[in-house]
């Protein structure tokens, strides 16, 4: 195995991962800020660097449909999208998981319209969290690259057979050039291995029916199977994350704890915010404040036990989330974290900060303020306003 250190944006890193995987079919439609992924990939196709059949479709609805059909036919199939593109795929997303097709899709997090906006927040993927897709968030380009490779193995595992979206934060990661380590093509090819086609529509010797009508008598049982597969994926995600560490030196789990073990106060976030939070935690630690970070890498399946155990010794934790669920009681991250803690004896007070909507920056100052505010809660033990908006005028 050889490792090359290169400068890549998040989009380039994901496109390179796709090139090295060399899928049989990619059907895609451009959308900012994910356009580059499939644009770069289509260049790989034109240059003969991959064997992929590239289908230039007329919408994301068709992109997901074509990817689904190709995957069902027995081809390793991928696509990529963002925001409105993902929204246009919503109708097909739960069909992919119901048909148990292991499609891996890079998804660049971008605010859902309206008002129309092209910048980062997580409202697009959060709205798609209940469709039986695994959701893996990346903090930087390196993680985006590593996550795509692992997702391929996770999804295609016989005990999982589910689709996954691997996300980066729009522009913040997708267009930011960073130093990453790439493995050589042969190593990646060997790592992902041959596609284990579970359904082969083109096998004329063994004709099958897929996507059949499933009424009161069988719909429930099929959904129960998807629920079980999502549950099963937890074990596989951990196994593959550990194995990745052994092979390549970077181990992955559901969450990343940063100076969390002895922390009194902590923030919890997804994606690129974790990078800024680490630097703020370092500053506070220098001042003797016991601050920590819990980064959630896998949002589906939701790692409830791991989060509860990571937060056991923390006094106050703040969820920082880039989407508002409009439930009138805080966002989805806050909801799920509190639900994970409900049955635990030792648990922190948890507050919610909705921040960074529509690409609004989540700055060092914002994060420092949040730590200072939860520091006060830790001192007094009382929460006045559990759900707040940070950085809004």
């Amino acid at each position, binding site marked *: 195995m050889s490792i090359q250190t290169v400068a890549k944006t998040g989009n380039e890193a994901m496109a390179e991962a796709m090139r090295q995987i060399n899928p049989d079919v990619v059907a895609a439609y451009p959308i900012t800020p994910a356009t580059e992924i499939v644009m770069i990939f289509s260049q790989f196709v034109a240059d003969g660097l991959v064997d992929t059949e590239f289908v230039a479709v007329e919408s994301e609805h068709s992109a997901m449909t074509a990817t689904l059909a190709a995957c069902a036919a027995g081809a390793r199939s991928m696509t990529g999208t963002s925001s409105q593109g993902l929204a246009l795929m919503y109708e097909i997303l739960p069909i992919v998981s*119901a048909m148990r097709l292991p499609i891996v899709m890079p998804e660049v997090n971008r605010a859902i319209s309206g008002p129309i906006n092209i910048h980062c927040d997580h409202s697009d993927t959060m709205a798609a969290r209940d469709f039986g897709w695994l959701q893996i968030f990346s903090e930087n380009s390196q993680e985006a690259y590593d996550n795509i490779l692992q997702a391929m193995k996770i999804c295609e595992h016989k005990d999982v057979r589910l689709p996954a979206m691997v996300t980066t934060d729009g522009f913040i990661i997708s267009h930011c050039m960073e130093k990453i380590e790439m493995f050589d093509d042969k190593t990646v090819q060997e790592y992902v291995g041959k596609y284990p086609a579970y359904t082969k529509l083109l096998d004329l010797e063994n004709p*099958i*029916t*897929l*996507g*059949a*009508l*499933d009424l009161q008598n069988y719909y429930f049982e099929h959904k129960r*199977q998807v629920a079980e597969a999502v549950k099963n994926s937890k074990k596989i995600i951990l196994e593959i994350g550990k194995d990745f560490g052994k092979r390549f030196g970077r181990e992955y789990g559901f969450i990343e704890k940063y100076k969390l073990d002895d922390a009194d106060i902590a923030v919890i976030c997804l994606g690129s915010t974790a990078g800024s939070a680490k630097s703020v935690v370092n500053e506070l630690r220098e001042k003797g404040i016991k601050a920590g970070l819990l980064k959630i890498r896998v949002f589906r399946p939701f790692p409830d036990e791991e989060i509860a155990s990571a937060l056991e010794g923390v006094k106050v934790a703040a969820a920082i989330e880039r989407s508002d669920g409009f439930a009138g009681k805080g966002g989805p991250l806050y909801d799920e974290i509190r639900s994970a803690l409900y049955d635990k004896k030792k648990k922190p007070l948890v507050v919610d900060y909705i921040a960074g909507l529509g690409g609004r920056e989540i700055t060092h100052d914002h994060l420092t303020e949040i730590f200072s505010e939860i520091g006060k809660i830790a001192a007094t033990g009382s929460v006045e306003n559990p759900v707040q908006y940070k950085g809004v005028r």
Partner: protein
Amino acid sequence: MAKDLGWKELPEGDILKSGTAVQFETGDWRTKKPVWDEKLCIQCLFCYIYCPDSAITVKDSKVTGVDYRFCKGCGICENVCPVKPVKAIRMFKEEK
């Protein structure tokens, strides 16, 4: 299927053997019914090709009639029938 399978025994991903549509009869909500006239029929097989429910029965490459268990009464067969001046398949009101 004799017994309703539980989720643990059911094939995953809703994968079934082919040809299961024959077990699902779709002909019970028809309001108009096609009637085939053997004498007028020129055996072009257009109705057989166009029928969305494979309800036109064929034997030895010749149309033999309509399988009303599957015919939804859409009228496509009448529409595509090229025989003039009177079509070989015509739609009539379904009688109760």
